């Protein structure tokens, strides 16, 4: 009697329901629809091929790398609005260390990553200690860094741009790791794509297979319950602030090496792309749920739009409008799917 009853109950959790429970499902469906749409509207015949892939991944990879960690932070219940400007800060810092101070690329990069880690640490400590919303704390960091980027760059170089990083003797050796191209069947992919895929796999593993991942979900889901169960909530959140900031800095250095220089305004506004990618990928803005793969799919959708719209010979000016519509529909669909998957209870 009991076993028959429990069998019947197991049958009700079908494959479809299981799939619906995945937070990234909405994003995946959306990505397929959008990809198909651009493949159909394509006038160059390249969008759906390897050339197209090299194009959209070039755009998506730097967004994806940071968006993954922004997503982890959002799952833990916090925002980092300074992640976009940190891309610029890191690029400028590394650039100035190389061209003005005369350090090699590798030591400059290490100093830059450490500096970014310290900024993340400051963000984290301020959020935990003051109890203020991270939205406000990191918004402040954002504006502080934005001003510093411009002022210090002008002070050191006399312009709003850092140049001359390619004179460093180890420029090419660093570039072969962070800004080279990989040829696959005639299409040249940026190496950032490899980093992007690597970080996606790493973050997914971290989130779903480790104790730290468990703590991330718990910190964002219900910080009090987590604390009562013995989870170090403050440490978890601070660690994520540090890692997010460092991921942004890595992208900053990659951009610097690829472009051989950097504008003082680089990265500003990117923080919204990261948050959009995370939200489109099924990360809850209130924390407690989400996925790293989802954020990467969100970044890929942005890549589709950035490449697909010019390929379709549409007016490029509409890209942001397109992303706005995508953000709204994806979050709407995600919410609807997760409600259905959870059933009527609660």
């Amino acid at each position, binding site marked *: 009697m009991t076993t028959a009853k429990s069998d019947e109950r197991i049958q009700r959790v079908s494959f479809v329901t299981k799939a619906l429970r995945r937070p990234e499902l909405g994003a995946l469906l959306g990505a397929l629809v959008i990809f198909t749409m651009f493949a159909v509207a394509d006038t160059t015949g390249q969008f759906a091929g390897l050339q197209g892939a090299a194009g959209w991944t070039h755009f998506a990879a730097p967004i994806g790398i940071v968006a993954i960690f922004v997503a982890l932070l959002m799952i833990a219940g916090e925002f980092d609005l300074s992640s976009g400007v940190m891309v610029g800060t890191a690029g400028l810092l590394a650039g100035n260390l190389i061209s003005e101070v005369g350090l090699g690329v590798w030591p400059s990069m290490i100093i830059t990553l450490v500096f970014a880690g310290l900024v993340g640490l400051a963000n984290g400590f301020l959020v935990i200690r003051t109890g203020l919303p991270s939205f406000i704390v990191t918004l402040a960091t954002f504006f502080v860094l934005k001003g510093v980027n411009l002022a210090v760059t002008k002070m050191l170089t006399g312009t709003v741009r850092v140049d001359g990083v390619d004179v460093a003797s180890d420029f090419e050796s660093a570039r072969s790791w962070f800004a080279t191209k990989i040829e696959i069947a005639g299409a040249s992919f940026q190496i950032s794509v490899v980093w992007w895929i690597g970080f996606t796999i790493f973050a997914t593993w971290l989130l779903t297979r*480790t104790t730290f*991942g468990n703590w991330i*979900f718990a910190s964002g889901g219900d910080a009090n319950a987590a604390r009562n*169960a013995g989870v170090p909530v403050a440490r978890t959140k601070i660690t994520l602030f540090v890692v997010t900031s460092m991921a942004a800095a890595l992208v900053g250095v990659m951009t610097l090496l690829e472009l051989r220089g950097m504008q003082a305004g680089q990265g500003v506004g990117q923080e919204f792309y990261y948050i959009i990618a995370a939200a489109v990928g099924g990360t809850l803005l209130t924390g407690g749920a989400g996925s790293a793969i989802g954020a990467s799919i969100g970044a890929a959708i942005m890549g589709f739009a950035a490449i697909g719209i010019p390929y379709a010979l549409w007016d490029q000016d509409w890209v942001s409008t397109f992303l706005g519509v995508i953000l709204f529909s994806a979050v709407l669909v995600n919410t609807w799917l997760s409600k259905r998957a959870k059933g009527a209870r609660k």
Partner: protein
Amino acid sequence: MSAKSSTEKLTPALELKGVGKSFGNVVALRDVDLAVYPGQVTCVLGDNGAGKSTLIKILSGVHKQSEGEFNVAGAPADFNSPRDAMAKGIATVFQDLATVPLMSVWRNFFLGNEPKKWWKPLGILDIAKAKKVAKEQLLEMGIDLRDTNQAIGTLSGGERQAVAIARAVYFGANVLILDEPTSALGVRQSGIVLKYILAARERGVAVIFITHNPHHANLVGDHFFLLNRGRMIASFERETVVLDELIQAMAGGSELDTLTHEINIIRND
């Protein structure tokens, strides 16, 4: 009477002697005596503001008593944080703050005590083990889940409390403090929780059941302590107490009489 005399020979799992607690010039607890024995359910009853929360916080290590003795298994307790209390096997299940609703049942069950495999510092979850143990332990407490992967928020309030209780018992709690576990629940749900309280008792756990509901206390309790305005005003044993007596004593006897009288006047109007 014989049951009572046998318990008195045992060392209490927790014991308070003349404990008081004041915050500045506000006296929250005064001269409280309490003894809690393994394998028994000790109910602490009190209305709002009686000092129940302060009592829980002393027992769970959040606050230190201002005066009196607090002994754990016969030795003086010196708790500086809830972690110290947990280390001594005292687990507290707080009303709404026990589980993370969006996380799966097995993740909640092992939250903060995750089983690890391979090289421990890497913190790699042993998911297969976690799922298996969670399912077994819950089944042993009588909770039959189709899937420990489901979010705990999809369970009913009673089942969620039950998971929190099963978790505390599994992680070696020998004293279980339950803070108003039934207050937000319906009749059926409360029944589920009361069943798990007895299941924990069967396992030899000393259960402290804090409630303002004398009906629920009466169903599972072995000892009853009544708290009013920061004092233990009465204590009863299971053999000797009658439900009406509990209700009367809890509401402060004469106060309830006055209230009954006033309500009768209104009804007759």
